[in-house]
């Protein structure tokens, strides 16, 4: 098959950004609207020719605001659509994402986080965790947030994103960073090429009212009773997602006396630190949330009951740690180590932090910020 660039299962060495873009096309993406921003530029560059090959549409929009609203239109008429950006641009997209969340349309967007706030820098960072996991824009809503930690997952997650977005009629995103976007690793696309003509038809899309009642996609509900009902409907949907779609990875947790909670790039660094620690006889394990929303809250709660110490490692000033503290609910000592501003901690540094946490004596439920020495 000509348009299927890589055979299923064949290993290729490509960048994370390219793997995500190819994964999206493979999963049925036929519309991309976006605006250049480092470190995600390989995504629009790749899709500018790749979507052309498969008969899709690529538009370099006049702004991120316009781009996300193009997706609003594309998704409204049933097209699997995608946009990608980095922090600054995702902030601009929040307006549209809120509308799309209210209209209950499925879209895929990716944030390859860079250092912030403001223009920040272009280095890998995790400072947009709050923005992603709390909805991001105005109003009561959530989006599904997937956090890959390898180029392999960057390639495979778009399919999952589209399936979840379609299933629940919700915006869903990949939250990664400049490192995962820029690095190359072997990847093999593990899912079949999605035949878009076989995606089940959607009974809410706009394609002309021939032979049916007209359809309206609307996010304005002036009657407070109507809007409250709509909000409760969304609430029920979010509960259903939280009950069914939590994904996480546990490593070396069985005998662990300290659990590191980290996602994405930070989780990769943590694994190196954990392997080093274990060589020295320190029993450390890893919990890697893969869905940041819905958050693996029960897993954290159970680990907190069983394990005395939890160490949250983030490339931010302490965002993930708030969720961990909330769900550990006073049952474990909580340590936090963060490097903001685009700094990626190195494994030796994290190993040092593990040792400090092991030696520390605080009470269960207490919080300790292990600042950089």
């Amino acid at each position, binding site marked *: 098959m000509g348009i299927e660039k890589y055979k299923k299962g064949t290993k290729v060495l490509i960048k994370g950004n390219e793997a995500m873009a190819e994964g999206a096309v493979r999963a049925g993406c036929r519309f991309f609207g976006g605006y250049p921003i480092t470190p995600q530029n390989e995504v629009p560059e790749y899709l500018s020719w790749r979507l052309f090959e498969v008969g899709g549409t690529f538009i370099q929009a*006049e702004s991120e605001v316009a781009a996300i609203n*193009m997706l609003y*239109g594309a998704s409204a008429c049933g097209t699997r659509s995608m946009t990608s950006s980095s922090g600054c641009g995702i902030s601009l997209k929040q307006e549209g994402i809120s509308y799309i969340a209210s209209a209950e349309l499925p879209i895929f967007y990716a944030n390859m986080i860079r250092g912030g706030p403001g223009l920040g820098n272009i280095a890998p960072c995790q400072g947009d965790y709050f923005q992603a996991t709390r909805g991001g824009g105005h109003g009561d809503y959530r989006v599904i947030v997937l956090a890959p930690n390898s180029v392999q997952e960057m390639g495979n997650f778009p399919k999952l994103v589209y399936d979840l977005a379609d299933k629940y009629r919700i915006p869903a995103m990949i939250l990664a960073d400049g490192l995962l976007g820029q690095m190359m690793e072997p990847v093999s696309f593990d899912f079949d090429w999605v035949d878009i003509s076989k995606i089940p038809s959607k009974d809410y899309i706009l394609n*002309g009212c021939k032979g049916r009642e*007209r*359809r*309206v996609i609307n996010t304005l509900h002036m009657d407070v009773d109507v809007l409250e009902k709509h909000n409760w409907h969304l609430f029920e949907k979010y509960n259903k997602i939280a009950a069914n779609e939590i994904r996480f990875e546990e490593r070396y947790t069985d005998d662990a006396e300290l659990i590191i909670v980290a996602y994405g790039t930070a989780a990769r660094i943590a694994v190196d630190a954990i392997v080093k620690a274990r060589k020295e006889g320190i029993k450390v394990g890893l919990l890697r949330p893969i869905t940041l929303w819905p958050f693996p809250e029960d897993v954290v709660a159970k680990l907190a009951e069983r394990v005395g110490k939890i160490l949250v490692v983030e490339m931010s000033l302490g965002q993930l740690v708030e969720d961990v503290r909330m769900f550990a609910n006073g049952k474990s000592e909580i340590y936090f180590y963060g490097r903001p501003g685009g700094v990626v901690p190195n494994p030796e540094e994290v190993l040092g932090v593990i040792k400090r946490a092991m030696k520390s004596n605080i009470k269960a439920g207490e919080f300790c910020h292990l600042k950089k020495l």
Partner: protein
Amino acid sequence: MPFKETMKIFKKPDCLTKIPMRYCPGCGHGIVHRLIAEVIDELGIRENTVGIAPVGCSVFIDEYFDCDMIQTAHGRAPAVATGIKRCLPNLVVFSYQGDGDLAAIGTAETVHAATRSENFTTIFVNNAIYGMTGGQQAPTTLPTQKTTTTPYGRDTKIHGFPVKVCEMLASLDGPTYLERVTVSKVAGVLKTKRAIKKAFQLQLDGLGFSLVEVLSPCPTGWGITPQKACEYVDEVMTPYYPLGVFKDLTKK
């Protein structure tokens, strides 16, 4: 002599729903809605049309037009229209936008949809004021015109100059058809309908971006009677915003 049988000579267009419009007496929106609906009926495209509602007084048009409709964020209708039309190019897509929506917050979307010559139609209703939010200054508010945010009149030294949308877009190579019309008089209404029909026909022919700017009365926002508002359109607005065709690539 009475008629022997009753004969229906005037009816609501099929493309309008039975929901009553919530516009003020003397507002131009209702006329423009009707003209669009008549054009859609005459072209037989109701079942193939998607309309895009803006933010502003016409925010509820998704209730009024009996075709597929989508309501969008303030100013973003051209971007949404782009997404729809590029994905399903056989649909007829129109955006309906006011002056704040199109020429202030949505200027970038308007200019870039026009310069890409996206194949949809924009109906731009210019009444020189923000009606829905209570009569504030619009990008098209005239010099010296009083609004609730220019209580001493628009002073161009302080508030800048009005945006002339057709003139601005006419400087671009992209747009196919740009015309400014008015609904202040019967002749203008008829001309407006011809312009709207031409714009839709251009889209059906795949010729690219078309925009019809309609100068429209807002008696409530301007604080005058409907009759005076129509006179204001003719005597004050029209001299500043001259009527006519600003671009027509079909006439070479």
